[in-house]
């Protein structure tokens, strides 16, 4: 527990169960299952797609809320009071997440999709992939960062504060950043559609999570909330994620079958961006002599993404069959192996940082 004498690193198996360690495998299986569903029983996705209210697919909205609500319900916004405790760490993570990450994602994705991969991807589809990458770049990790922080022996109090701060910023910054970057990419999305997706997939789950948390803690206590309520509700997120992916690929079957190579092409800029953001934040922390238990979680939150929000926004803005939705899913596909590679890098470079701040 005390990090002063402990120089060992937790094993991946301790922090992650079978499901999360092999997430890429389950995502790949969900892709195959979705494609098979779309090809063998197309009536099912077609029937589900007709259940719409104000152009919002009700089954998809329910799945997305199932993914996002549990994460929002575990955010402790009173932690925001701790923003003054690790000013260097929070300055780095806030600047990287909101002033660098969305724009570097846009720049890298634009370079690959619109220039380097021009011979392989039709222009209209390339714009869609760019849009998906923009959505990924504008949403930093919200929940998985606790697992990455554990695997790098990150400071618990700091991790809580940075998650609360980033979620609060996301509430106000996600829509303007997305609209701006889509605008300069000549991808027209009506403001009211973006505003609706922000209300549906950020404001409502966040408010519902906050109200649920406050009222249940008041009624039953924080211990019951953590150990009973969240224990039941928390695992809904990954289940919702996998079902959403099956649904998504039931609609995406033709795109994937016609362009199987596109998954690899989409993954390349996403992988480069993940490493770039990690090294910017981690290197900055090294220059500022930030302790390792702050530097590692600070770099991890930006490197990882809030996939559920990106997938939700892509579906809301561009539809289930869109290239944008496909691009956000490729982000999920590569997430765990990439982040585990960064965990290994962080643990191997621990000695280059000052002793842990406690």
């Amino acid at each position: 527990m005390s990090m002063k004498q402990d120089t060992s690193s937790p094993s991946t198996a301790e922090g992650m169960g079978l499901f999360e360690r092999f997430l890429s495998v389950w995502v790949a299986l969900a892709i195959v299952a979705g494609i098979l569903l779309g090809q063998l029983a197309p009536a099912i996705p077609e029937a589900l797609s007709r259940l719409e209210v104000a152009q919002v697919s009700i089954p998809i909205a329910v799945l997305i809320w199932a993914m996002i609500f549990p994460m929002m319900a575990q955010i402790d916004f009173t932690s925001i009071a701790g923003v003054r405790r690790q000013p260097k760490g929070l300055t780095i993570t806030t600047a990287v997440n909101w002033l660098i990450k969305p724009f570097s994602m846009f720049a890298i994705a634009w370079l690959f999709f619109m220039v380097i991969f021009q011979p392989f991807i039709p222009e209209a589809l390339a714009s869609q992939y760019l849009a998906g990458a923009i959505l990924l770049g504008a949403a930093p990790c919200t929940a998985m960062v606790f697992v990455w922080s554990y695997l790098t022996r990150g400071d618990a109090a700091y991790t809580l504060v940075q998650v609360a701060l980033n979620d609060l910023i996301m509430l106000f910054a996600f829509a303007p950043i997305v609209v701006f970057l889509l605008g300069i990419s000549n991808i027209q999305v009506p403001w009211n559609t973006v505003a609706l997706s922000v209300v549906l997939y950020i404001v409502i789950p966040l408010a519902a999570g906050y109200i649920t948390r406050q009222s249940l803690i008041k009624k039953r206590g924080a211990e019951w909330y953590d150990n009973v309520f969240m224990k039941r509700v928390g695992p809904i997120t990954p289940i919702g994620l996998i079902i959403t992916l099956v649904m998504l690929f039931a609609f995406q079957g033709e795109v994937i079958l016609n362009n199987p190579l596109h998954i690899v092409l989409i993954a390349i800029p996403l992988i480069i961006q993940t490493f770039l953001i990690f090294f910017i934040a981690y290197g900055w922390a090294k220059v500022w002599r930030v302790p390792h238990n702050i530097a590692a979680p600070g770099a991890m939150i930006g490197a990882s993404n809030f996939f559920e929000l990106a997938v939700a926004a892509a579906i809301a803005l561009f539809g289930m069959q869109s290239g944008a939705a496909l691009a956000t899913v490729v982000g999920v596909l590569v997430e765990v192996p990439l982040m585990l590679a960064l965990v290994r890098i962080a643990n191997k470079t621990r000695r280059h940082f000052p002793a842990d701040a406690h």
Partner: protein
Amino acid sequence: MDDVIEIEENALAYIKQRGNVLTVRLSPRHGCCGGSANVAVAEAISPKDPSLFQRYHHQGITLFTDPKLTYQGLKINVEGFWKLRHLYVEGASVLAR
């Protein structure tokens, strides 16, 4: 690390205003892609089931703490104002579930 858990003066005053009881426990946080980890949290209330905790009389208060969190050099402090005022644990890493 002589203390079970060190409690800062301001935190001690806050705990004494609220009934002289402190619980330091592990709170699980779930990852969006699965997995979970524990963070140490402090509250000025008694635990639901005290038998799951180690009990100490410490600095004039009753302290209930998760056995994994004792003698680890942890420090309890208080921060924020009005509704945001809360206790927090310094010195704890994120732990395995």
